């Protein structure tokens, strides 16, 4: 669905390129987790993907169209939930009245249902600027999912959400996801979203450090306490002894520990990537 090719971008020439010759492919039917350290360029990549920033060279295509052209065809099938945003001094009803027409597949019924999932009731006359940050985020996400765009991109969606809302957010993603859609979730809160991902993409500026399906991770790597004879790729101390990322034994399938996978990839992306290439 998205083809990102040879992207080069910098905010400030003096600081050098944030992205240099960066390429990545994102396909329909997947929920992607976009992970990276602070300053790795996650948000910038998202703005480049949604046509908000212009690359110095290279391009981002959505279904073959350059997103930077911001064609109605592209913009009506793409929704971005930024990490922080302001909502206008309007009632929800007014807001929907103004914004929903841009999205041909918007469904009021869906939005009511998603507001219910978030326990935000059905009061469409609520003033958007009277809501708390977390409530704003939930209302905006209910709208975002209800637009039924094929591409939904969310920057730190669980930041500012209380504990029950994080679970409600997962319910929303798993309810709304379908084979023709692509969702991209950029986050540091890996525990919030680990179970809902199809695919994990770890970036560090110009480099894609890891880009692989979760099912592949499960079958090739194990996350668990070390045993005699293990040859760990990464180790970490825990109250339960030394934990490690190790090549999975035949038939061994553990739950993916996204935090450990991330740390292991930052420390030794070559060894991790080798696990996914040598066995192919």
């Amino acid at each position, binding site marked *: 669905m998205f083809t990102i090719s040879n992207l080069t971008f910098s905010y400030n020439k003096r600081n050098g390129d944030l992205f240099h010759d960066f390429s990545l492919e994102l396909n329909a039917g997947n*929920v992607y987790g976009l992970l990276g350290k602070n300053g790795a360029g996650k948000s910038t990549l998202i703005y480049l993907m949604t046509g908000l920033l212009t690359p110095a060279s290279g391009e981002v295509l959505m279904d073959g169209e350059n997103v930077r052209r911001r064609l109605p065809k592209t913009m009506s099938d793409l929704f971005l939930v930024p990490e922080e945003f302001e909502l206008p001094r309007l009632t929800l009803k007014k807001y929907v009245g103004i914004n929903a027409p841009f999205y041909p597949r918007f469904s009021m019924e869906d939005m009511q249902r998603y507001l219910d999932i978030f326990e935000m009731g059905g009061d469409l006359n609520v003033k958007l600027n009277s809501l708390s940050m977390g409530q704003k985020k939930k209302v905006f996400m209910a709208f975002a999912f209800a637009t039924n765009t094929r591409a939904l991109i969310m920057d730190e969606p669980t930041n500012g959400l209380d504990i029950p809302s994080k*679970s409600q957010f*997962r*319910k929303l993603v*798993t*309810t709304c*996801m379908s084979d023709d859609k692509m969702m991209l979730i950029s986050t540091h809160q890996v525990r919030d979203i680990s*179970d*809902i*991902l*199809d695919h994990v993409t770890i970036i560090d500026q110009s480099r894609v450090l890891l880009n692989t399906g*979760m*099912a592949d991770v*499960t079958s090739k790597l194990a*996350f*668990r306490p070390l045993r005699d004879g293990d040859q760990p790729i990464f180790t970490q101390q825990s109250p339960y002894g030394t934990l490690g990322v190790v090549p999975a034994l035949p038939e061994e*399938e*553990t*739950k*993916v*520990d996204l935090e450990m996978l991330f740390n292991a990839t930052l420390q030794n992306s070559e060894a991790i990537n080798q696990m996914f290439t040598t066995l192919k």
Partner: protein
Amino acid sequence: MNFKDNKAIYLQIADSIGDQILSGALTPDGKVPSVRELAAEIEVNANTVARTYDHLQQNGVIYTKRGLGYFVSPDAQEKIVASRRNQLMQGEMDYFLGQLKAVGITPAELQELYNNYLNK
């Protein structure tokens, strides 16, 4: 749903469906929730749940009717018991017996403990 750390999630979901079949919450030839329904309910990626269903189908615990979805196999209970027995004997039993040996519990003591347990 709360997941343990030591087992792939798709297998933990399979265990939970197995539990429901053993307890009678899911009955032979009864319908199993669709992949999307279950994914939304337990907040897990739909492809993970699809993997669970593949796994259960391969083990003969559930079967598909074209266009209608997944159903519990008539002999699902026996299949689950057999496979769990197998798992127990291969993995946990070995560890358990090792622990008994380490603390010096004799076969006679073990027999008495087990008899008492069964009579509880």
